[in-house]
């Protein structure tokens, strides 16, 4: 199986590489459209600030490629947020895959949300064998509100979408690669999805 992690200069890719290796797979980093298209699974990571990450996607032309991919694609954290219509962070237009606008938590809660929180209302084969209310590791200041494409929700200030799915596109606000054995199981589920 060929796993490609999209390399567009955004943040901590090594953790995802290591997590995939622990599961017995190997992944390659690439920003090459042909290589990304030919992959069995594509992971779209993202750490950092939305507008500068989007700028890097635009410069590399990956913004037009990603929405056309046919194999399972997993956006993680900022990757998931960039797959939405837009995000308040840096007033950034996203890839428009998920039909939801990302907004900021209010100052009623500490921002960023940092730490372990529960996921529930699990609705996808991504969560095969995962029980409701498991804890995942999250670090974020912006969130996707609960919506039709939500496949998991989490409570922080309010109930929001902590994972999204539309057809072959998946997104998790949490970091499966940093969420202990349960997180690794979710990552494994993604890698074992049928194309």
């Amino acid at each position: 199986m060929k796993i490609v992690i999209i390399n567009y200069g955004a943040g901590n890719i090594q953790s995802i590489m290591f997590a995939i290796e622990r599961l017995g797979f190997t992944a390659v980093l690439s920003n090459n459209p042909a290589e990304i298209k030919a992959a069995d699974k594509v992971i779209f990571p993202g750490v950092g600030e939305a507008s500068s990450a989007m700028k890097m996607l635009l410069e590399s032309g990956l913004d037009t490629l990603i929405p056309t991919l046919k194999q399972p694609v997993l956006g993680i954290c900022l990757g998931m947020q960039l797959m939405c219509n837009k995000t308040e962070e840096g007033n950034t237009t996203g890839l428009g895959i998920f039909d939801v606008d990302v907004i900021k938590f209010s100052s009623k809660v500490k921002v960023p949300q940092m730490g372990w929180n529960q996921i529930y209302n699990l609705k996808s084969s991504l969560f095969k064998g995962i029980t409701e209310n498991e804890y995942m590791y999250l670090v974020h200041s912006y969130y996707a509100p609960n919506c039709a494409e939500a496949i998991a929700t989490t409570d922080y200030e309010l109930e929001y979408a902590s994972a999204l799915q539309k057809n072959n596109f998946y997104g998790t606000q949490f970091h499966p690669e940093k969420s202990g054995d349960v997180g690794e199981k979710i990552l494994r589920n993604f890698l074992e999805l049928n194309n």
Partner: protein
Amino acid sequence: MLTKRIIPCLDIKNGRTVKGVNFVDLRDAGDPVELAKIYSDEGADELVFLDISATEERRKTLVDLVRKVASTINIPFTVGGGISSVSDVEILLQNGADKVSINSSAVKNPQLINDLAQKFGSQCVVVAIDAKQIDGKWIVHLVGGKVPTELNLFDWAKEVEERGAGEILFTSMDNDGTKNGFANEALAKLSQLVNIPIIASGGAGTIQHFVDCFNAGKADAALAASVFHFKEIEIKTLKQELKNNNIEVRI
């Protein structure tokens, strides 16, 4: 609900884990990678690696160690000690660290906080603040608590938040190594003053001390070293007791 976090801190010197009493008299408490794996398996929520000799000796943090830890464990970890530039941070993040902790370098060059937040995002910028009370005022100290500054803890905390820090790791030098409990009053004041998470550090000796730092100190996370390294407190037992005290934890 978002849980309170328990964070073992591995103080590293010459590639080994050490823990000092009031930062002197270092004792050897094992291999960092092995300890990291044990803590991860026992339910630690995060890990912090502090290269305690780095600031004094101008030594860069242990990139090889970061790689080994990142390839072994599946929970987040922070690396601190001797980090003074954007490129220092870049190499640590590239090798698998999730966050970095800066201390003296932030005091000497506060713009570093802005630069790191801008380049890597606030979520990976932890500002560590060591402070102790002098004439009733909490004064920020540098170089492992040896050198006092002009800065007041609360003013500095507010400033680092405004500059883009994602989290504050507050160590009370008055409490550190005493095992008499955390500096809960100062912690609670900090937690109300800023709107980013506060990690409590310095003074853990009993399970009750952790309960108090979350209830009275309103901390978001608690960090400790020797009580974990020498198995005076087991993380599993600690988290169960916190849960029994109605404190939300991941079990």
